[in-house]
């Protein structure tokens, strides 16, 4: 008898000299070709998100091989069959969510840890249908595994990490990381376990440019009794940490029409008084610019949040005499909204 074995499966050749042992060999052959309860999670690369600066939601995905079969042979004999597998990812185990921690310190909470989501799909089977994973729990949806090393069809398992923009925006700047374990249940028994390995996830949240508009006061246009136009202005402070203090300002009002015209409105009747609104950045030599539907640019103070007590921008309101003369008696008002962002 000659016996050769590979990947745990044996081929037995019966010679003339050993015919007398045929029955026994048949028994032996049946024994050595018994199924192998195989499941294996192959290497998964680390996830490096890099530096995040106010760029919305982010996600990264890596593909790898998960085999689940009754054979260890990458190219198994006809008797080889593939079996379902279920993936599991473990985090710190604090709850069902997954977290990245500031400086990798798992004691951090609140705005010093980032919640992430693991989403799994079998790209050879699920056609992009992702299933969310939860800490220390094997997914409830099983997938058909490949033969060992996915030699026949390529990588089948795709694990995506998703991080919501709101989650990122609310966190302290710094380096976040976490170590996670990945494992799988499967094999022909469905309970074979590959404890897998760990992988690393890293993310840096950078401090984005910041702005602040302050020193704003209401503009009291007074009482109008029928003589002349009205002009009033209000100066304020714009702080911006963008390069050279550059900022963009969008000036709007709920009473503004689609063409960008501004109006004071008498609430009781809806009567309107049109007014012109202009903006000036007093940090640079420029005239007052008419405010319409487009935002404007300015240069803010980039060293002192309060502009050192020196306001560096202003708006001016001008109401033509005829618009005032034609207005009905009463109180007219408007609220000007100034949205500043780094530029």
């Amino acid at each position, binding site marked *: 008898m000659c016996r050769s074995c590979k990947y745990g499966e044996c081929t037995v050749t019966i010679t003339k000299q050993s015919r007398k042992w045929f029955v026994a060999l048949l028994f032996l052959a049946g024994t050595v070709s018994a199924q192998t309860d195989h499941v294996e999670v192959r290497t998964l690369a680390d996830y490096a998100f890099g530096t995040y600066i106010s760029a919305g939601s982010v996600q990264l995905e890596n593909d790898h091989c998960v085999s689940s079969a009754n054979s260890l042979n990458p190219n198994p004999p006809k008797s080889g069959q593939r079996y379902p597998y279920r993936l599991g990812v473990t985090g710190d185990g604090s709850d069902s969510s997954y977290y990245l921690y500031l400086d990798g310190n798992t004691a951090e909470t609140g705005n010093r840890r980032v919640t992430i989501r693991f989403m799994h799909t079998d790209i050879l089977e699920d056609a992009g249908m992702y299933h969310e994973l939860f800490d220390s729990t094997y997914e409830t949806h099983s997938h058909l595994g490949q033969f060992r090393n996915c030699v026949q069809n390529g990588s089948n398992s795709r694990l995506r990490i998703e991080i919501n923009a709101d989650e990122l925006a609310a966190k302290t700047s710094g380096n976040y990381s976490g170590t996670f374990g990945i494992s799988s249940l499967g094999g022909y028994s469905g309970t074979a376990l590959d404890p897998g390995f760990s992988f690393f996830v890293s993310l840096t949240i950078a401090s984005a440019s910041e702005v*602040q508009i302050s020193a704003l006061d*209401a503009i009291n246009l007074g009482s109008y009794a029928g003589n002349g136009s009205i002009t009033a202005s209000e100066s304020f402070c714009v702080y911006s940490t963008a390069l050279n203090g550059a900022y963009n300002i969008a000036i709007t009002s709920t009473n503004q029409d689609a063409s960008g015209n501004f109006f004071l409105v008498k609430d009781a009747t809806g009567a309107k008084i049109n007014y012109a609104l202009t903006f000036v950045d007093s940090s640079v030599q420029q005239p007052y610019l008419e405010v319409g539907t487009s935002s404007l640019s300015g240069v803010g103070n980039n060293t002192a949040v309060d502009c050192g007590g020196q306001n560096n921008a202003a708006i001016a309101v001008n109401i033509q005499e005829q618009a005032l*003369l*034609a*207005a009905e*008696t009463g109180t007219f008002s408007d609220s000007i909204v100034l949205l500043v962002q780094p530029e």
Partner: protein
Amino acid sequence: MKKITKSFFLLSTMASAFAIAQTQDGSLGATSTGQIDLDLQVLDSVEITSLNSIDFGTYGAGNTGAINQGDSFCVYRNGGDGYTITPTSSNGSFELAGTDSNADTIEYTVRLNGAATGASSASAVSYNAASSTFNGSVFRDCSSTDNASIDVNIAEQEIRDATTDTYSDTLILLVNPI
């Protein structure tokens, strides 16, 4: 002769209270939003312009019947809203007074209308009483088109009863916003 002095009345009513609006500074962040509130109190405003003197001319033996003369003028009212006119005179009643120290007077009646013509057909207005309500122009010069008128009528017998003299009065038209 009766004279209407060109008059200007600008009536304003102060607001009882002026609401101070809320204003809000922005906070430090990726964006910052501030708010500036505007408030304006528009007061009642009226103005009467383009008034001219009314000259009744002379009335003698060759004249008969009542005489009436009028004038058109401009009334501005903010918002183009309503107004009334309360007429009074420097003589204390609707009467022309002699200028040569005689005691005779010539009574007259006054009619007002909220258009450049048609006052002669309107109802007479009592002394120091408000007229009907008219609507003013939103333009102080009424776009050079008068929008109100007055008619002054003297009955023939009033003239016949009067000593020879020159008679005059100054009508005062007080415009009241409604």
